[in-house]
């Protein structure tokens, strides 16, 4: 049986389930990301744009050049006198950027919610899923540029399942064998990146991860010692790194199912530790759980998969 026929069999069995899970996970991740944009100040891109504008309007670069010339004897040339823009015009521009930020976020939310229905009638609009994908990718990149968070510089690969989910949706809904094969690899690589980066952060004892453990254990009245917390995080880190290698190397259903469960547990740990108000953090991380499950449902081989026939047997449920 060729790879293509196997894939067709798989998609014949699960086409709706597959796209529904992907659409739901995408919807939730956008919902979780849009919520803080609307109610907690703005997106990472919005923050970056606002800061860039404020710094420019305040004449910071010219100020720095003047200080470098006058105090540190470095540049020796200050071309322009520093001009600061009127605070009212800065505020107006910032307000415009904030509105734009919210507008784009709402558009992405509408696309994530509306496209599953529109695609039934016009399959080609599935490519519009790339817009939320680009928005999430840009936000991850802006998060890395904004800095100020532990491991912020790794945000793009760390959030690969989120933006990757929409690439996968666009591919799956275009419904042909080649794009399914690409979707399989996008999912596997996205899972590998997200799990590897989170594993690395855990292994490096990322402070927010430590606090998730302390707070979660605290809720069940278990006082976690620092050494136990560190030991646990290192073990989790190792596991995540192995899972990241595993998802690209082999197609092994129990491993993928465990990745799905683990993704769900780690996403849920946020509201468990922080309270229900942290639900957007849970929602935006749902693709970490959904992506490995989609790989299972796709049932296509990994880099060093077992023989095709075996995989076919594995993925086909007993009827």
């Amino acid at each position, binding site marked *: 049986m060729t790879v293509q026929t196997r894939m067709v069999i798989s998609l014949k069995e699960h086409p709706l389930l597959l796209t529904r899970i992907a659409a739901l996970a995408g919807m939730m991740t956008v919902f979780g990301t849009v919520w*803080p944009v609307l*109610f*907690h*100040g703005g997106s990472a891109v919005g923050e970056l744009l*606002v*800061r860039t504008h*404020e*710094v420019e309007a*305040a*004449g*910071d670069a*010219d*100020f*720095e050049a*003047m*200080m470098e010339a*006058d*105090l*540190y*004897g*470095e*540049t020796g040339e200050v071309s322009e*006198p*520093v001009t*600061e823009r009127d605070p009212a015009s*800065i505020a107006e521009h*910032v*307000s415009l950027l*904030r509105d734009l930020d919210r507008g784009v976020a709402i558009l992405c939310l509408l696309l994530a919610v509306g496209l599953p229905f529109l695609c039934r009638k016009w399959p080609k609009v599935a490519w519009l899923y790339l817009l939320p994908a680009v928005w999430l990718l840009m936000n991850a990149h802006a998060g890395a540029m904004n*800095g*100020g*968070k*532990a491991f912020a510089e790794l945000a793009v690969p760390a959030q690969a399942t989120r933006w990757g989910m929409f690439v996968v949706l666009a591919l799956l809904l275009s419904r042909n064998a080649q794009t399914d094969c690409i979707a399989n690899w996008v999912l596997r690589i996205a899972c590998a990146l997200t799990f590897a980066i989170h594993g690395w952060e855990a292994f490096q*004892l990322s*402070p*927010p991860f*430590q*606090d*998730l*453990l*302390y*707070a979660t254990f*605290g809720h069940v009245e278990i006082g*976690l*010692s*620092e050494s136990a*917390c560190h030991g646990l995080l290192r073990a989790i880190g190792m596991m995540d790194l192995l899972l990241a290698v595993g998802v690209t190397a082999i197609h092994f259903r129990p491993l993928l199912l465990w990745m799905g469960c683990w993704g769900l547990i780690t996403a849920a740990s946020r509201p468990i*530790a*922080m*309270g229900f*108000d*942290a639900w957007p*953090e849970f929602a935006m991380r749902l693709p970490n759980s959904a992506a490995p499950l989609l790989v299972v449902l796709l049932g296509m081989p990994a880099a060093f998969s077992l023989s095709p026939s075996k995989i076919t047997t594995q993925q086909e449920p007993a009827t």
Partner: protein
Amino acid sequence: MNKKSTKIPLMNTSRVGFIVTSLTFSLIAAVYADDVALSKLDVKTLVSKMTPLKGTTPAQWRVVWTGDASREATISWTTAEPGTKHVVHYGPESGGNEKKFALSQTCQSNGAYSIEQPKPQKPKEGESAAEAAKRNSRMKISPAYYHHARVKNLNSDTCYYFILESDGEQSREFYFRTAPAEGDDFTLIHGGDSRSGHADRCRMNLRIAEQAISEPKVLAFAHGGDYIVTGSKWEQWRLWLSQHELTTLKDGRVLPIIPTKGNHDGGKNGLYFEVFDLAEKTERWHTTMLGKDVALVTLDTNSAAGGAQAEWLEAEMKRLRPEVRWLLVQYHRPMYPAVKGPAKHAPIFCPIFDKYNVDIALESDGHCMKRTVPIRDGKKDSSGIVYVGEGGLGVGQRKTSEDRWYINDGGKAGSEHHVIQLDFTPDKMRVRFILMDGSAWDDHTIKVRKR
């Protein structure tokens, strides 16, 4: 005669009245003019107030408090060249024209700031290799050197005058006041987030100095973190340090700084710790004793709240609460934010704050102004803790989320550059948000807790 005698005093009274009124008006006008000037001060004037970093001329001076503020301080400065001998001459009397002081302390810690040089850029189109090399060499950041003199065994509630000396190059005379041994008749200024907006950052520094001029009881300045955008970049720290000179009063008075580490102040090279002479492993969190009645506990929201920090906090609170009248905490990321989501530290820190009845929590990071209602166990409670913040020392201000329960119904939020002024008295603490123009946006009183 009687008429005359009554007339003269009347005339005298009106004259005195006229003089007093004129003086009052001119004083108000002078203060007002100063305030107007503060917001309009141009950049050239601001930069001209700072000390160039040249040779071994002491510049970027600061006095750092992280321990017993009645008895010790770290006096730090920067030079452009390494030099060999760095001494602070100090004493309870001014050195006068001859600059003679009773005491001196050789710096215990000297070194080069850890500078990450920008990567050399390739030649641009039409640019020769030599030109590119020249351009790259211009981009090179000049080295700079820190000097920290840890002075101990000071007398409480005493002005200490000092000059900084590096290889014979002397600074002008400065002074700072140590905290009283006991009692709380003083004022503390708190502010955070100076990471961008250089001109406004400078103006807020001048505002801090103005506050200390108008309220001589101002003892120190606690910074809530996010001094700069990228903590690993010396080229940003040096700007902040030069601009920090502006918090020095015209008469040479330096307000000791009590530092907090913000989320933008980190970096593998540990510049934050070099700037404030702190040990990275053991001094990420610390307690500053402002006499025996006021304790300011500084926490680190970049480190995990649980584990070592929580254990330390619990032990410190247990030790301090029965001893001090005013127990304050400061840290960077807010537990009850007015803009963003709460810090992940909240589930661990807040129950400890509640348990030990902290008197006020000083927060930053949100780039806004807020004063919460008193909160205990996540609910409004008149016996609870008021959380104030969230940083406005130059950075662009954000719009607050008005719908949050803790800033409504008695709480307050807004968006302007500000510092928070805490006036202590034995029975109450007055908490004022002072804006750049010197006006108060909020004036709130917290009563002392029954002990």
